[in-house]
Each structure stands twice: as C-alpha cells, then as structure tokens.
C-alpha cells in the first residue's frame, strides 16, 4: 500500500490516490474475504449437496408424512370443514370414496400403514375395506360399520384427523414414548412398549463411560508418546495408528473371538483355574462387550489430539514447579493437567460424538442390553420401514449432541480446542 499522506487537509489519513486509509483497508480486506470465499465455495457446495441437503430432507420426514393426506383427499376436506365434530354420513361417504380411489391406486396399504403407526392393528381395516369400498352404496355409515364395527372408534377418527395433515408432531411424540389414547389425546405409552427415553439415557451414559475410559487409558499413552525420544516415539505412533489400517468390522469380530464365552480370554481363565468351566465370564452380547470393543476402537481418537497438545507443552514449567518444592502429584494436578485441558476437550468431544452415533459395534457385540439408540434408528430405517420415526429419533439425537456441543463451548470454548 502507498504510504499515508500525513499532511492532508482534514486529520484523516489518506492513501496516494486520495481514498481514506480506513476505506482502502476495508475494500482490500473485503476483496480478500471474497477471494477466500470463492476458494472455499467448491467444498461448501459439495458439503451442501452431499451432506446437508440429503440429511435435511431425511430430517424433514420427521415432521411430515403424507401417506394418508395425499391419498385420502375427500376425507381431508371433510376434516377441514368439520374439525373435531362427530363423524356423520358425509364423513363416511368421503371415507368410502377415498378408499375406493386408494384401492385403484394400490395406496390402501400406505394409508393403513400411516394409521397403524398410531393405532397398531388397524392396517388390515384399511386394506380389507378398500377392497370392498368400490362396490359400496349409500348409506355409507351403515355400510362401513357393517364391514367392521371398529370404524366407529373415536381414537381411529382422531388418528385419521391428525394424519390428514401432512405436518405432524406425532412422530416426536412416539419418540418420547407417547401415543394416542382411547379418547384421542396423547398419553404415555404402556410400560411394556416404552423404549426410546431409556435408550437415549443408556446411550449417553455408555458414551460418557466410554469417553472416560478412553481418557484414562489414552492419557498415559499420549504422554509417553510426547516425551519419548523421536525414534521410540515414531515406533509407538505407528502402533497407535495401526488399527486404522484394518477394517472396523475385522476389529470388532476379533473382539468377538476374544470375548466369547468359549473364546480366548475365557479359555485362558479356565486353564489358569481362575474361573470354573461353568463360571465363564459373560463379556459378549451385553454392555461389557460394547464398552470394551468401543473403547478399543475410539482410543486413537483420544490419543492423537492429546498427543498433539502435549507435544507443545514445554517441560520447563514442570521442572520449575518441582524446583519450587511441589510434589509429583501437585505438579501434575496444578501445572501439567491444566495445560492439557484443550487436548482433553478435543479428544473427549470427538470420542463422545462418535460413541453416541455408533451402530456397527453395538449391533455385533451388544446383544440385547448393549445396543444404543442408533440401532433403533437403523431398525426403523431398515426393518419396520417407519422412516418418519427414524428421522424423529435422529433429529432428537442431533439436537442433544448440538446442545452438548454448545455447553462444551460455554465451559471450555471451541477456540480453545486444539487438534495440534
């Protein structure tokens, strides 16, 4: 930039071509920012198209489901006109007309499935009624009730009313273990079908335990890596990185071989007479198996950030503390540990977020009580094909992780997070 012309008329610093220095600086920095933005633009577009948009669409399924509203148009019109009124002949006429159309388009199954989410067992009501609806004549109310008296149920009409709008919060209600009761209002689901809240709690508790274990095991290793002479440290580093070169599935299955009740560890313990043959430790197909296997898999994610932070800690501080008379423990607690906090934060948040979303390892070694919320989301995506409920659960998981991230930001601060 040209040197400022100090002898200007007013006291404003100007560049050679007369523009005030402040403005020139602003223009230059804006240009630099635009240039930087365009450099990042391809990556931004890529992330938006392949990540944000598909996930956003998936999550939007959590509050929209048009299986019923798109196919049962007449009934939707009746609900718009009559709200919560008791269904009359016109309502049943609209219902019969819509079912006849649904039978022609082969959408009766979808319609029934949508209501089945709220009121289990009602799917066949719709599929069997659709087959007969085409031949039905007025009076429709008697005709429908003759087909099946269940058509008069108030909770069925309540479910149909709420399903006739594509936008719905019912899936979030289901994700919190609530369902439509007999009178049409939401109430807690029966005890024996309440799973999601418990699963969320279990997921977070287990993830915290796994993160804690990773921290406990990873801290000494990272410290060793940081203080050893380079030759030994490189060898150790290769050993830490080696698991990344093997497939995740291979690592999990090798844990299965080790932890099985007839596996290597149990056989060793029986051979050493530590446990009897019928007292073998159950380390698989339960929470223990999940915790052990996931700690192993997530350990490098804790070690590497810790290592990179510890590498930058000058040893002079610890030596100074010792020379001033501090014990080892005091030195560690008051001098070393606070300097590693940013590494602990980085490693901790990385491990926690990975653990919360983990699916494969709990599915393989978790058995019945080691499974996490992600397994339930996968179940709804793949087996029960209730994508809206899966999206609702996933949205809640995402929201809770974002809240934790925000809390982490307040306590430790993202700017203090160093990965190296």
């Amino acid at each position: 930039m040209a040197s400022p012309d100090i002898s200007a008329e007013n006291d404003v610093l100007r560049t050679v071509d007369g523009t005030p220095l402040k403005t020139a600086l602003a223009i230059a920095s804006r240009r630099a920012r635009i240039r930087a933005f365009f450099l990042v633009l391809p990556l931004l577009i890529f992330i938006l198209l392949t990540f944000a948009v598909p996930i956003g669409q998936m999550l939007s399924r959590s509050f929209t489901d048009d299986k019923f509203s798109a196919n049962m148009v007449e009934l939707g019109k009746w609900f718009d006109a009559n709200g919560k009124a008791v269904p009359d002949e016109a309502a049943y006429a609209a219902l019969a007309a819509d079912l006849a159309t649904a039978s022609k388009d082969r959408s009766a199954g979808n319609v029934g499935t949508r209501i089945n989410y709220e009121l289990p067992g009602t799917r066949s009501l719709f599929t069997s009624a659709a087959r007969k609806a085409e031949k039905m004549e007025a009076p429709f109310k008697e005709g429908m009730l003759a087909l099946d008296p269940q058509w008069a149920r108030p909770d069925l009409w309540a479910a149909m009313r709420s399903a006739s709008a594509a936008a719905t919060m019912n899936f979030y209600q289901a994700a919190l273990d609530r369902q439509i009761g007999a009178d049409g209002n939401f109430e807690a689901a029966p005890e024996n079908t309440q799973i999601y809240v418990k699963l969320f709690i279990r997921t977070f508790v287990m993830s915290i335990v796994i993160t804690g274990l990773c921290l406990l095991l990873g801290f000494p290793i990272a410290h060793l890596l940081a203080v050893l002479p380079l030759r030994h440290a490189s060898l150790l580093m290769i050993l830490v990185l080696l698991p990344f070169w093997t497939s995740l599935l291979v690592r999990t299955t090798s844990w299965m071989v080790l932890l099985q009740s007839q596996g290597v560890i149990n056989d060793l313990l029986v051979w050493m007479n530590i446990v009897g043959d019928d007292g073998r430790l159950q380390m698989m197909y339960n929470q223990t198996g999940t915790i052990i296997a996931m700690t192993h898999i997530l350990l490098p994610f804790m070690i590497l950030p810790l290592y990179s932070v510890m590498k930058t800690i000058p040893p002079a501080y610890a030596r100074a503390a010792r020379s001033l008379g501090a014990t080892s423990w005091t030195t560690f607690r008051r001098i070393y540990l606070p300097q590693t906090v940013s590494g602990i934060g980085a490693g901790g948040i990385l491990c926690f977020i990975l653990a919360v979303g983990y699916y494969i390892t709990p599915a393989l070694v978790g058995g019945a009580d080691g499974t996490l919320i992600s397994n339930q989301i996968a179940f709804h995506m793949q087996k029960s094909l209730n994508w809206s409920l899966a999206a609702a659960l996933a949205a809640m998981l995402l929201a809770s992780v974002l809240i934790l991230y925000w809390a982490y930001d307040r306590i430790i601060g993202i700017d203090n997070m160093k990965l190296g």
Partner: protein
Amino acid sequence: MKKLLILSTALSGFAFAASAQEVVVMSWGGAYGKSQNEAYLKPFTAETGIKTTMVDSDNPATPVKAMVEANNVTVDVVDIEYADAIRLCDEGLLETFDATMLPAGDDGTPAMDDFLPGAVTDCSVATIVFSTMYAYDTTKFPNGGPKTMADFFNMEAFPGKRGMRKGAKANLEMALMGDGVPAAEVYTVLATDEGVDRAFAMLDKIKTDTVWWEAGAQPPQLLADGEVAMSTAYNGRIFAAAVAEGKPFESVWDGQVYEYDVLAVPKGAKNKDAAMQFIVFATGTQRLADQAKYIAYGPARKSSGPLVGLYEDGKTEMAPYMPTDAANLNNALASDFEFWADRDTQLNERFNSWLLN
C-alpha cells in the same frame, strides 16, 4: 421435492453400470444364495445368454422401499418372505406379475394347480417352502437331546444357551407352541393381548441365556463355536452345516414355522422383462427340483416333488430334511401372512422394548 430427493440420493447412491441385458438377483447369501446360484442363475445364463449376478443381503425386503422411493432400483429380482411380499405389493413397491406367463408343470398340470395353494400372488411367485425350526449340538447333550418345542424353553432339563432370531416373527408362535398351544390355535391365541403376554412370559424363561441372531448364517456359526447349545434357524442352513460340513447338529421339527419364500421384481427395476423371464425360468418344475439338490428347502410346485432325490454329494436323501416331509409336519405351523402384515410393527416394538428391559 421428489426431484431433489432423487438428485441428492443419486449423488450419494450406488454407482451401477447397467449393461444391456442383465439380471441382478438379491438374495439371502450363504448356503441358500449358493444353492440359487447353482440351480437358477447359472442355468439361466447358460440357456438365454443373459448375464446374471447375485447380491447378498440379510433380508432383501428391507432395501426395496428405499430403492423404489429414491427411484434408484439397482436389483431386478428380490427373494423375500411371503408376508413381506404381500405387504410390499399392497404398498405398490413391486411390479405386478402376470401369472399366465407361468408354464405348466413338467407332468402337464396347469400352472395354477401345480403350485401349492397361495404360492402365486399379484406380485410374486413362490419358489420354496422354508422353515424356522431349532437345532441343537448333539455333543452338548450326550444323554439325549431335546425333542419338542417345549424342551427348547426348558432350562433345567436342557441347560445351555439358546439362539433365537432377533424379532417377534416366528419366536412368538414358537413360544406359544412350547407352552402347549396346538398349532391350529396359535394365531387365534396370539391375536389376543393375553396370548401375547403368554408368549412373552414363555420367552422370559430363556431371555437371559439367549443370543439374538440376525443373519441366516449365524446360527450354524454360533452352534459350531459352542456359544449356544441350541438355536432356532432356517432349516436349510442347518442342513448345509450338518450334511455338507459334517457338523454334529440335529434338527427338531416339532413346532416348526414354515413359510413360502418368493421371487418378486421391485417397481422400476431396470431390466424388468429379463427379470420376469428369470422368474418364469426359475419357477419351472425342473429348476425347483434342482435347487432341492443343494439345500433342504421344499419346492413350491407339486410336480417337482417326485424329482427331488439325492443331495449333490450323491449319497444323502433329501426328503427327510424337507420341511414338508410327512414326518416333519406333525406339529408344524404355516406362518400367517395376514396376521403379520397387520401386527408386525406393533409386536416388533413390543419385542424391542421387552429385549431392552
């Protein structure tokens, strides 16, 4: 909205180079997939020259909805369970099948009479009758193993861990039959709340000692590892392990739950005509009899029955291992697809929460 969904999913979807004429078949893998490869795929390619490929899945019904909705159907034929086929057909996710394309049996019987009752539906054609039964490791029970479904739930007389498929289907029926409900009444009992409670109470007896499997190849693996003493399984997989690999497994047919397995074409499949041609070919009399040469699943055509002979090793008689053999049908239950199409979601949710608690 839909275009955006297609675009975004296609970007992150499979990259599949479709050639002119090719049929991609998605099946269950393992010994069963292998038998289909030998009996259907290879002969089809030999006869028509159309290339065939087999793709494996734990349950081919699950990707069908995702593929059809994303308009990115990468397989042409899926091998699915009967109840799933009915449900998917109701939801418009399968192509309708023209039953007049099916040829008569080799003995002249017209197709609709030759196929077992219910085998041909709007969207699918059955190939085999398979059964979920249970098998045990004979080395774990030197003094005689379990003989009935009630024995499966008897932890005192027959100690050892159990293996069961992770899901409500077939498990609830077996629990009721183990509790003494005759096969003919199982679904009437299961339709009531008390019946469901009774089934879960029976399952509670073995809950803490059960390993839950999801892939068909797991039960023989679990039995071979010694991880479980007895396990429910698809009967063909046990046959493959016992006869082909010589494992000491014994099947218990009491309380078996049998069902059709069908071939169907997902809506929007790229090679629809070739796929239909494949299904017509694969459900011919000789083809169905041939697949019984490789694995112990009963053919869905009556005319194939007499043609079923020996296993591919040339020594073992297949008949005693078939679910539909007279000796095995004593206390057998035909899986009710209407019941499961209706109650699948609800009972699976109840099952999942029962597992959790």
